[in-house]
Each structure stands twice: as structure tokens, then as C-alpha cells.
């Protein structure tokens, strides 16, 4: 099968993988432009014709996966590859379709987040309020349980009440996410987090939740709060969650 067909298939299925392209080579069977796909588990499609080269390539791809960074790597003297980490577009799930969700959906789309809005109130989770978004007007628990999280999913929990927040997090924390943020006053947030601990979620997983949500820019209006949340999403995407946390710690936000 043509490798490009495989690439399109993988991208459509929202898989993360490494597309390795030979840039330079002094090995006769390995020619510049030749391509191989390396999965995150290390399997290779399009062998280089030697187990040694394949395993060296898989090792270098692992490093690129870990750093989540496309890069040039030299597999042996004179043999260089471009290791292109291909991952799906970021997906942003908004749990809660209230007054902050509207500007948040609007700001996130031009920043290349595909937005999904979940709310159990059809009047709120409606296409007229959220143009170009995927709308799920269902009970939070059922909607989240059935929804496919890609390897590049961000979730923002901004429902109308802490019981709903808790219902959402119970489902979300079972899945793999890049980012989870929870809005709320300290009191409300503490209630939710303690409830999760009682449910048996590990402290480490609970600590992954960004709360209070958003970068500390002094936001007050719904639009300002949406901007602070979307800034945090961009920071996590570009610089990682460590930097996003460092920005909060810088002004003394710590729960």
C-alpha cells in the first residue's frame, strides 16, 4: 500500500505517530525521500531493511515522542532522518454551555481547537449559541462516558453547579487528557476535589486538574475569563503544563 494512504488513514483516525523521512544517506538501500511510519509503541511500517537500523530508528522516534517535538536525527554517520511527529488537531471539550462557554468557543476556534460543547440543557447547548462547534445536548455523565477522547484532548469544566462539575470529572479523569481545567471558587473547587479523593482517584491525578482555571490576568467579565482560559490552553500546548503552572505559582495561586 502507498505509504501516503496509510498516513491519511492514521491522521483521520486521530492517531499519534512519527513519519520518518530519510534526508541523507550513504547506504545504498536507504535512499533520500524514503519513508517509514513509527508508532508510539515502536512498531515500524516500511522497514529500512535491517533490524539494527529499524531498532535505532524506533529509539530515536521514542525520544521525539517523549519531547513531542519533530526533529532531525542522525541514525549513523551520514544517515539523517526527519522525524515528524504527527498528532491530531487539538480538541477542546467544554462541559457547560453557559455565559463563559460562548466567548471561550469563539476564541478557541481560530487558535485551532476543534470545540465540542456538552450540556444537558438543549436551550444552552444549541448550534445558534455555538456556531461551528459539535454540540452534545445530553446528560454530562453519559455524554462524556461515550465520547472518544483523542490523544490531544483538552477539557474545560464550567458547568452550572458543583454536582455537575463532579459528575464530569468522574468521567474525565478516567481518560487520558492533555489538560483538564475546573472553574470555581476555592470552596466549590475544594468540595469537588475532596469528593473525587473519596471516590478513590489518586492525589496525583486530581492534582492534574488546573483549578482555579486560567492564567492570572485579573479576568472578571466572561470574555476576560474566557481569554484567561484560552491563554492557559495555548501555554500548555506550546510550552507544556509545567510552564502553565509556573505562571500561576509566580503570583501565588496554589490550591
Amino acid at each position, binding site marked *: 500500500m502507498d505509504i501516503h494512504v496509510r498516513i491519511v488513514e492514521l491522521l483521520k483516525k486521530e492517531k499519534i505517530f512519527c513519519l520518518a523521512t530519510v*534526508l*541523507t544517506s550513504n547506504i545504498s538501500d536507504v535512499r533520500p525521500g524514503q519513508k517509514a511510519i513509527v508508532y508510539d509503541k515502536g512498531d515500524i511500517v516500511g522497514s529500512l531493511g535491517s533490524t539494527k537500523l529499524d531498532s535505532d530508528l524506533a529509539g530515536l522516534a521514542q525520544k521525539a515522542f517523549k519531547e513531542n517535538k519533530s526533529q532531525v536525527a542522525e541514525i549513523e554517520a551520514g544517515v539523517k532522518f526527519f522525524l515528524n511527529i504527527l498528532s491530531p488537531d487539538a480538541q477542546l471539550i467544554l462541559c457547560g454551555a453557559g455565559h463563559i462557554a460562548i466567548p471561550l468557543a469563539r476564541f478557541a476556534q481560530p487558535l485551532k481547537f476543534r470545540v465540542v460543547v456538552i450540556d444537558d440543557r438543549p436551550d444552552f447547548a444549541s448550534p445558534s449559541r455555538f456556531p461551528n462547534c459539535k454540540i452534545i445536548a445530553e446528560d454530562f455523565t453519559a455524554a462524556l462516558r461515550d465520547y472518544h477522547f483523542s490523544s490531544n484532548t483538552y477539557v474545560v469544566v464550567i458547568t452550572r453547579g458543583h454536582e455537575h462539575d463532579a459528575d464530569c470529572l468522574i468521567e474525565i479523569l478516567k481518560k487520558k487528557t492533555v489538560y483538564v481545567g475546573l472553574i470555581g471558587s476555592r470552596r466549590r473547587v475544594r468540595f469537588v476535589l475532596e469528593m473525587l479523593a473519596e471516590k478513590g482517584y489518586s492525589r496525583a491525578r486530581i492534582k492534574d486538574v488546573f483549578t482555579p482555571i486560567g492564567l492570572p490576568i485579573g479576568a472578571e467579565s466572561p470574555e476576560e475569563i474566557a481569554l484567561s482560559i484560552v491563554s492557559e490552553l495555548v501555554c500548555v500546548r506550546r510550552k507544556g503544563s509545567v510552564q502553565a503552572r509556573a505562571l500561576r505559582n509566580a503570583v501565588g495561586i496554589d490550591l
Partner: protein
Amino acid sequence: MNDLEIFKKLMELKEREITVCLATIIETAGSTPRGTGAKMIICMDGTIYGSIGGGCGESQARSAALRSTLITQKPQILEIDLTDDLGTKGGDVCGGKLWVFIEPL
């Protein structure tokens, strides 16, 4: 265009038997408009899809693509320098350098 759109377009062009070249940014230094992994398809009639940052860099990539396809029939690595101080020579002013892999497909 995202990667999926680029590869879909690539297959569509190949099905129509249009000769194409793919240009991919493989490395950057300093400030550049687009980062590593950005892709652009160059057709032999000069049509382009996607972007590796616009401006002079893209026109250099386009010439290199024509050379790769029509003359050498081999991939090449193109270095593009965007360090023209103030853009006075009609160059780009971003201040960085980028390396682009150009491959006939």
C-alpha cells in the same frame, strides 16, 4: 492547511497524475514565521497548497522544487536565510533561518 489536508491534497493530485513536490520545514534557527513540520505542496504549474511561511522563502522553495523535479529528480535540503536586517533588499525580516526538505513525489 493541517497535515491531514496536505496529505489528502497530495493523494488527490497524484491521482490526477499531476507532478508534485512536497516542501517540509525540518529545522529552524532564530525567529521564523512557521515552525518545524510546516508543509507546502508545489505543483509543476507553480500552484501551491499550504505554506512554509510566505514571502521570499516560499519563492526560493518553489524554484528549488522545480529544479528537484525537472533536473535532478532527487530530494534536496534548501537553506533559507531570513536575516536581511530591515527587509531593505526586499527580503524577509523575521531574522531566522530555516531548512526545508524538498522531495519530488
